């Protein structure tokens, strides 16, 4: 479903990604772990081209994302993204946050879009917050709305960039529970996370990134149980 070949990314002289190859299959949940500054966010943001790619290719459903002839907006409709800092639209109600993209981009009718929004709010447990504004919500609630907003485009893939890192500890669970539910429903997910518990429980595969490359990958049992790479061992000993 996602295929990444020889992905390089530089910011000016700073080389952040130094050759990443990786394939993500349909319905797979891939967790990306690694130390701060190793390029995890950059990797994720290259997949939907929020960062332009210096070298290499990303294919989604066989379409080369970074081809000049590819309409990136078409690709992005199929790839939802959830940010560390939620990035809800503060000038819109929760309902409008969720319906704006389906209405404007998928040309969905008002009634249909609202129905969909209520369904999704039900799913993330926030049906009663439809008319609230982002500033009236807690962090955990905002992140759940952000997930609903991304799901409203009916994406095939969901990208999560440290979705719980900006949350108070007591709110982490409510967000992870929504993500677990999503994983169980068969969503293809790429999750950058510091929640090793989530990676262990829900990940089909874990990628350990360091210094712009994938140092080690495998099932959670392999990576957490018997890490082969020294850097992985070192990292895990610090976070576990």
């Amino acid at each position: 479903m996602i295929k990444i070949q020889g992905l390089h990314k530089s910011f000016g002289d700073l080389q952040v990604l130094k050759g990443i190859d990786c394939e993500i299959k349909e319905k797979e949940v891939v967790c990306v772990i690694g130390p701060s500054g190793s390029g995890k966010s950059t990797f994720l943001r290259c997949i939907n081209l929020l960062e332009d790619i210096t070298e290499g290719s990303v294919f989604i459903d066989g379409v080369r994302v970074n081809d000049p002839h590819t309409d990136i907006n078409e690709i992005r409709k199929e790839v939802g993204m959830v940010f560390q800092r939620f990035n809800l639209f503060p000038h819109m109600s929760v309902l409008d946050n969720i319906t704006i993209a389906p209405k404007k981009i998928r040309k969905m009718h008002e009634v249909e879009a609202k129905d969909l929004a209520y369904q999704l709010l039900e799913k993330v447990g926030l049906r009663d917050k439809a008319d609230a504004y982002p500033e009236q919500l807690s962090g955990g609630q905002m992140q759940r709305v952000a997930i609903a907003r991304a799901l409203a485009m009916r994406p095939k893939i969901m990208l999560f960039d440290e979705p719980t890192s900006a949350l108070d500890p007591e709110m982490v669970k409510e967000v992870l529970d929504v993500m677990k539910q999503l994983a169980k429903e068969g969503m293809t997910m790429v999750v950058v996370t510091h929640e090793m518990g989530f990676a262990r429980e829900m990940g089909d595969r874990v990628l350990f990134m360091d210094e712009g490359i994938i140092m080690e990958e495998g099932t959670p049992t392999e990576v957490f149980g018997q890490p082969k790479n020294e850097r992985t061992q070192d990292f895990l000993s610090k976070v576990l």
Partner: protein
Amino acid sequence: MIDFIEGIRFDMIWSYKEYFIRGLWITLSLTIIGYLGGVILGLFLGMGKLSKVKWIYYPSKLYVDFFRGTPLLVQLLLIHLAVIPTIFGSSLGPFTSGAIALVLNCAAYNAEIIRAGIQSIEKGQMEAARSLGMPHKEAMRHIILPQAFRRMIPPLGNEWIALLKDSSLVTVISATDLLFAGKVVAGAYSRFWEPYITIAILYLLLTWVFTRIIAYVEKRYSNSYIPSQRRGIFSRPSVGR
């Protein structure tokens, strides 16, 4: 001193009242036209200054630098006496020249305000919109501009007041604005206190009224995005969440 006060004759203002009423009307018209035109043109220029495309960015920058870097008085004379006669073969009258100059000048200042307002919106807002598949233009229209607009209200309000006062410069090309009325009276009677004090008071009144209106709009759109918590001018402060 006593002689001076006793010598003041406001009756001559009264006999020229049509001039002052007409002047007020012209000043207000020029301000409204200059401002509306300036906002619309300024929006495009402001976006132009944010463009990564060189042939959009540089002309926008050049425009803004020129109109902010030269005196409005010079721009007025240049447009009225040089540009318009060259293009149209004859003058289109001082009002038209004045309006054009004010639009062009105001647009440059508004462009900077609009650019700064757009840039002040957190990068994540654009990214979230784009990640949903919104094209750049749609994201601007639905996500960025509505938020940026609130932050632009105070500086755009200042710009309105500044334009109201600066519009008096059109007097030099003989547009019959408020200041011009004062000059006519001054010329007719060779007296200066009465006419200039009168127009000063009229300008002060105008700026006072508009300052109040702007303060109201600012209040209405500040604090909160939650409609029920936006404050009307007479409503009590809302209770926190």
